[in-house]
């Protein structure tokens, strides 16, 4: 408990400095409203349902896009590592697509699927699929020959080896790729909602900012930051449990 407190002490100090900077007008309160005002605005947003409504639609988009990317990216990555023809077909596509800034696709996805959920889900899916595919591919390709041979000599067929040896062996790298995808999904979500959307965190940040409600705008920014942080922590806990075999001593 004390340890956690000490660990997050810098954040507390930052909050305090923020509050003072605004209260004593070291900076303009338009640029930085006092933190206490931000908290008050947050409570208001929560009470009038605005925050929950927009959260729900943002989380739906992340869930859809990220979920799809995890399923399809894993299948593609392992397929590329396991069957040469799949690799020959997909490797150049992944290579070329890898460095494309995915935010550049925002207008494209809007043209395809409109202003609603579809374009956001597609964008998150496309962006997140890359790290998931690469993680699954690297993990599956590194599967140890001797382990595969051992399984084969114990009577496991090729598909059995894939399921029993290659996939568990790929897990650490795959889970790492998914973590990158998780962080990326928040970035893509907010940027796409900032550009064109009628709901969601990005939309809320943009419209509150445009309307001059800076304290409320900050409240939404902090909400997204906190959600991203919490999601990463929860994810790390899942990883820790899944890979318990690795860290036990």
């Amino acid at each position, binding site marked *: 408990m004390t340890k956690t407190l000490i660990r997050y002490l810098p954040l507390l100090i930052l909050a305090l400095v923020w509050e003072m900077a605004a209260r004593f007008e070291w900076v303009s309160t338009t640029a930085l409203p006092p933190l206490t005002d931000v908290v008050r605005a947050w409570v208001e947003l929560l009470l009038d349902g605005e925050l929950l409504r927009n959260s729900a639609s943002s989380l739906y988009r992340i869930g859809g896009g990220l979920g799809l990317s995890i399923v399809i990216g894993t299948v593609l990555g392992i397929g590329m590592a396991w069957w040469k023809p799949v690799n020959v077909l997909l490797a150049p596509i992944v290579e070329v697509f890898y460095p494309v800034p995915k935010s550049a696709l925002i207008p494209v996805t809007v043209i395809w699927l409109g202003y609603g959920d579809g374009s956001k889900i597609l964008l998150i899916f496309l962006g997140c699929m890359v790290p998931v595919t690469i993680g699954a591919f690297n993990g599956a390709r590194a599967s*140890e020959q*001797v*382990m595969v*041979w*051992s*399984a*084969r*000599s*114990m*009577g*496991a067929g090729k598909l*059995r080896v894939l399921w*029993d*040896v290659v996939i*568990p*062996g790929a*897990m650490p790298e795959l889970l790492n790729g998914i973590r990158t995808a998780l962080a990326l999904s928040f970035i893509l979500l907010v940027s796409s909602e900032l550009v064109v959307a009628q709901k969601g965190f990005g939309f809320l940040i943009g419209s509150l900012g445009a309307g001059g409600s800076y304290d409320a705008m900050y409240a939404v920014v902090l909400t997204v930051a906190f959600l991203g942080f919490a999601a990463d922590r929860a994810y790390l806990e899942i990883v820790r449990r899944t890979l318990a*075999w*690795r860290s*036990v*001593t």
Partner: protein
Amino acid sequence: MQEPAQIVVDNISHLYRPPRGREVLALDAVSLEVRQSEFIALLGPSGCGKSTLLYLIGGFLPVEKGEIRVDGKAVAGPGPDRGIVFQHFALFPWKTVRGNVLYGLERQGMAKAEREKRAMDYIELVGLHGFEDSYPSQLSGGMKQRAAIARTLAFDPKILLMDEPFGALDAQTRGLMQMELLRIWQRTPKTVIFVTHDVQEAVLLSDRVAVMSARPGRIKTIVDTKFDKNDPDIFKNKTFVEKVDEIWNLVKDEAIKAQGKRSA
């Protein structure tokens, strides 16, 4: 009447194709016969193709020239009649010791109660009782190799292929494991092909030692090393010392040749 051989290696040649660089003739016209329940060591300098020969018998590498027959049938792939133990254990790190030992039994379709009991029996046989729920990362090198041996013995292959199984262990553990293997082998006599570059180990464990030449690998000679190994002072035993000396002289030239080739 001589019993027909269980494993027949008939005029095998094998090309090793590295991902980069020129292909190398790893094995050149190798023939070998192994009888049932015999313990034979393949001995030679590193790079002589002894592991390649083992992998060919295991069915892990495709036979390109010549033929390998096990119980009269040509080897076309891996199978549970031939169990293998690798130098670096090849345990599944995400499974416990019990999970690893159970794996082969599950693949054989053994009933649950029976395989649970059998797994525990073999864990006990290799002296890992109390560690059945440990993960490989929690075990020492010697314990990992015990677990790997239990995993392979448990599904009861007729033939045990061992690829420098004690090569990654420290000298003391190695000595203990050699004794242990002899004990286990006397209780569950299987045909064993044991790859090593350690002359003492080869003489200590096997009935015959096939000495291989430096690349391209050929079988230079086969030395009979069957004598009473139950002498508690085996390392000072006259027959043992003579055999080690005889084989060491055969291997020495090859080791020097292999060294020369590598530094060239």
